[in-house]
């Protein structure tokens, strides 16, 4: 799970700025850039969160009282 989400995070994290730079350079159309961002920005957000979330293997922090 974590390996896959990490790979997805890196991939989408690269695609988002890459599409913006390519569109700025004129290599791809603006509409392609938007399509890339619409698809990969949410995936980047979710996969980033999934990568750094607490491990599923151990218990959550126990409540130790105030």
């Amino acid at each position: 799970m974590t390996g896959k989400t990490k790979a997805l995070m890196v991939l989408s994290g690269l695609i988002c700025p890459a599409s913006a730079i390519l569109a700025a350079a004129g290599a791809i159309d603006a509409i392609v850039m938007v399509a890339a961002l619409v698809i990969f920005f949410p995936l980047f957000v979710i996969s980033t969160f999934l990568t750094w979330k607490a491990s599923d293997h151990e218990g959550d922090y126990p409540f130790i009282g105030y």
Partner: protein
Amino acid sequence: MISFLLYLLLAVFIGLLYHGIHRKVIARIQTRPGPPVWQEFLHTLKFSFKQTWIPMTASQLMFVAIVVIMIAIWVGGLYVLLTGGSLLILFAIFLLHKITEHGLGLSSGSPYGKFGAIRSVISAASEIPLFATVGAIYMVTGSLMISDITAYEAANGPLLLSVIALPMAIAMYVIVLSKVPYNPFGIIEAKEIVSGNKTEHFGVWRAGLETGFAIKTFVLLAAFVTLFIGALPLWLLLIAMLIVLLTMSFICALTPMLSPYDAVTIQALIIGFVVVYVVIAGVIL
């Protein structure tokens, strides 16, 4: 083009910050100390660090996909707004937001989520025609492209001051109001049904939702300012958005949450007012 990516990050940042300011202002009006203004960042980060899984009862793929779609549609909405695309597309994106709200509640299998989803449909009955009345702006500007509308405003002054466009501004204001947190029309996440359609989306999913909602708040506030005041430089846009948000904070702080059918009735009355006004204005002019 790189500016769009920066705008996107700015939208997340400003959206979360404005949510925090909104909470703070509501608290101060109600003479509570309130959370710090960056509370919503902490909130989102806190959720993102939590243990996360998909509930057994949920519709497995849908449960996750709906969060992704929620962020995706508002990324598209931001682009439409920034490039001065069609107001109709913005309307479509608002409506798609209603559908994702519905899906958010339905996908979890929880009765609370389900009731939130049902209420989302009930409120769609009035919110969607309400947004449709904003389309009557076409009568004034002769175009629904946001770039044409801002060009019209640059030539003829803000639409907010125009007598004909005023009801559309009110309709749009109510639309934005019914999408900020703690608003009187927010029946879908009322506390009597726990958190409504967001109930079962915990941890990472909730953090993703907060991100999407931040972009949504940014887009809707910016759309209101752009449509009815005009195209402003960024710093002025942010100030205008904040002022609009502050007026909404006052409304949210001072009004109780309406019951589902009252919320629909009040919005329907506003629709009726706008339609009558548009018909009369159309006959006279």
